[in-house]
């Protein structure tokens, strides 16, 4: 009987511990769904190509939180520098990470450092392809 308050406290703390872990598990859910129609591109690249010329002539668009290759033009995007269509350099620095999907539905993660966070790019802005040597890492998940 003397131990009862301690037991209640332990139950509450345990519930909190489980709730914290559940919260962490929720945060680790990947919002990318490779089976979504937006994520599958008919003329998508082969994995492990990196910052290859296939990016040229296509724009990176955002659909429902997922990065996909869409229509448009990529003009000039280099590590440490991004220019818009008129050649103006954008004075922002951020980590670049976006993803595309190949025909099999596998995702391709392309990462690098650039002067602009690509998910903040306006829809009207066009960007150019990277050179492969400037790719930091390309991976598949």
């Amino acid at each position, binding site marked *: 009987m003397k131990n009862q308050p301690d037991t209640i406290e332990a*139950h509450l703390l345990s519930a909190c511990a489980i709730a914290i872990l559940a919260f962490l598990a929720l945060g680790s*859910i990947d*919002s990318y769904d490779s089976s979504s129609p937006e994520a599958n591109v008919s003329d998508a690249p082969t994995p492990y190509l990196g910052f290859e010329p296939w990016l040229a002539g296509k724009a990176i668009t955002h659909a429902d939180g997922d990065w996909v290759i869409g229509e448009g033009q990529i003009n000039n995007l280099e590590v440490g520098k991004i220019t818009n269509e008129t050649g103006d350099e954008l004075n922002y620095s951020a980590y670049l990470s976006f993803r595309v999907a190949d025909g099999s539905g596998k995702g391709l993660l392309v990462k690098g450092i650039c002067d602009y966070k690509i998910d903040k790019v306006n829809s009207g802005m066009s960007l150019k392809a990277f050179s492969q040597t400037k790719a930091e890492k390309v991976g598949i998940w």
Partner: protein
Amino acid sequence: MLKALISIFLGGAIYVLWRPDSLLMFSWFDLLGVGRQIDWMRVAASGIEMAIPEWAIKSLPQALWFFGGNLMIISIWRAELRLGRLIWLLVLWGFAISLEVGQALAIVPGSYDHTDLLLLIIFGAAALILSTKSNYEEPTRHN
């Protein structure tokens, strides 16, 4: 408890620094206004990503969380309150295993991986063994 917190922190750090930024937590960081700082941390840490084995990035974080969770439950419950400890450990194990099984059955978001499940079991068992060992050693030290 300190070991538990360190373990959970390490697991979280791996997620934040080296996992794809499509994870839900990254949209939370943006909402909290720390997305840019997190981006820079990821840039700084990206140099050593190549040196880290894939399993350590993909499977280790949740195993560390599970390890920490087990240690937390064990440290909350005193040794004489075995039933309560057992119940909450079962809840924790049930939760973790059901998430993995749920992924295998495509009920839970994410992709099932044998390594995830294997590491969960290894780290969970390690936490239980470590705490059992320290429980036995504790009275010896006082004597």
